[in-house]
């Protein structure tokens, strides 16, 4: 079966959930195996970077790349896999828009190192050692990847053909994309236009939410544990901060239909560049506020506004970093 298509999967700055989402496709994993040779997948199979380097350019049919670009190794791997792959897919929220690791863009590299290696309560580092890209040990030079100043989504670094959103992408959607992809490749059909978002809808999460929307004004926000929300009514109407109106559909509304507000993991809907701006526009219609003071009073009940509205999308937003790290912020 030397004629199978070739598939590579890689993780950069991510949690590993996207890998699980691929495995969660259950019996579809057999279709993947039947149609693809997996040439690189550090989580699951034992190929090394030198094996990828040895491949001819454009010899990998599809690369599913998850994770953002946080250090020089991530960037190097993204560029290598781009060179070797015909189709590069930003798989999952981190590769698409930075996701949770992107929130670190609110802090400087120095303050992140300081916290992680010195301040964090669980750290035991009596010698105060901090990693350096280059160090000399017994006459040898040891190197580590360079930790960049900020996290970037994959498309800031390499050309990306398709995006599969989600944190992680829902496995039924992943399965459907894989089935479609196999059909396209095996039958020589036309690939979707470049830039297409695969495995997601064209509307907002609200479209898939079964809750009933009313014209209600809210006078405060509740965190999910502070309220027993009516199971049939819109969470936003009840004061639970829900990112639904600013989030692409495709997940099936799993969170909202289970009583948890949408956190926005499917990224901004089509025609929106910035999830934060989109939710501010939407929320303004439901605030019971006649003055700026009213708005501020209501916002005081919202913990960590930036972390809430840019939980997934900060690194790909219009202002993707904090421009002044000396600012104490409001967290």
């Amino acid at each position, binding site marked *: 079966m030397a004629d199978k298509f070739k598939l590579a999967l890689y993780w950069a700055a991510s949690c590993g959930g996207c890998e699980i989402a691929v495995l969660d496709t259950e019996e579809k994993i057999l279709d993947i195996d039947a149609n693809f040779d997996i040439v690189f997948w550090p989580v699951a199979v034992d190929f090394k970077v030198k094996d990828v380097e040895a491949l001819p350019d454009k010899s990998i049919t599809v690369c599913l790349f998850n994770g953002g670009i946080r250090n020089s190794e991530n960037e190097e791997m993204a560029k290598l896999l781009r060179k070797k792959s015909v189709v590069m897919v930003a798989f999952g929220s981190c590769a698409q828009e930075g996701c949770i690791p992107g929130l670190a863009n609110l802090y400087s590299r120095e303050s992140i190192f300081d916290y992680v290696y010195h301040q964090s309560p669980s750290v035991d580092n009596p010698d105060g050692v901090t990693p350096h890209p280059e160090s000399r040990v017994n006459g040898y030079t040891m190197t580590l990847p360079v930790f960049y100043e900020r996290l970037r989504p994959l498309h800031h670094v390499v050309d990306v053909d398709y995006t599969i959103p989600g944190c992680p992408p829902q496995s039924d959607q992943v399965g459907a994309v894989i089935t479609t992809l196999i059909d396209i490749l095996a039958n020589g059909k036309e690939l979707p236009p470049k830039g297409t978002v695969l495995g997601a809808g064209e509307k907002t999460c609200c479209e898939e939410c079964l809750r009933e929307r009313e014209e209600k004004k809210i006078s405060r926000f509740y965190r999910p544990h502070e309220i027993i929300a009516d199971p049939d009514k819109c969470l936003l109407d009840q004061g639970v901060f829900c990112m639904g109106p600013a989030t692409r559909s495709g997940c099936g509304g799993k969170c909202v239909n289970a009583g948890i507000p949408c956190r926005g993991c499917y990224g901004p809907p089509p025609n929106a560049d910035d999830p934060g701006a989109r939710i501010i526009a939407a929320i303004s219609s439901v605030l019971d506020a006649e003055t700026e003071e009213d708005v501020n009073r209501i916002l005081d009940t919202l913990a960590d506004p930036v972390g809430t509205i840019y939980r997934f999308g900060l690194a790909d937003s219009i202002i993707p970093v904090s421009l002044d790290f000396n600012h104490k*912020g409001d967290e």
Partner: protein
Amino acid sequence: MATEPRIIGFLCNWCSYTGADLAGVAKMKTSPNVRIIRTMCSGRIDPEFILKAFRKGADGVLVSGCHFGDCHYQEGNFKAMRRVAMLKRILARLGISPDRLKMVYISAAEGDLWAKTTFEFTETVRALGPFDRTRLNALYPAGNGENEKTPEKGTGEITANEVHHG
């Protein structure tokens, strides 16, 4: 010579723009630092417009709508006010002084108030100094120009014959 503050003014069609027009017709002096963009309603001003203004080089953004109760579309100005108030918090956390963004209410008859407001806000922004975009530009060189957001998400087409069929 110090750089002059660059200010974008988003004005609603029915009250504020007409007010600014009145200032012009009456030959009142207004601040040349304010560049006006007319929208049908202050409620049309998407927070994205304001963020993009800062990203593309504005030192300050002035949003002007009708007085409460006067909105041609009933409550667009309330929405604008809420958006501006929310956005100010976000700007603060992103390291942009919230004082660079201001919401005002100016009627079609208040040309003098518009003129006064432009000078006042110009002075506020001047006192804050130029909005330091150095860090943004250093980190996102591709965003420092026509591409207001990020490098474009891919260009060109992939053709099916690039794929090796098995």
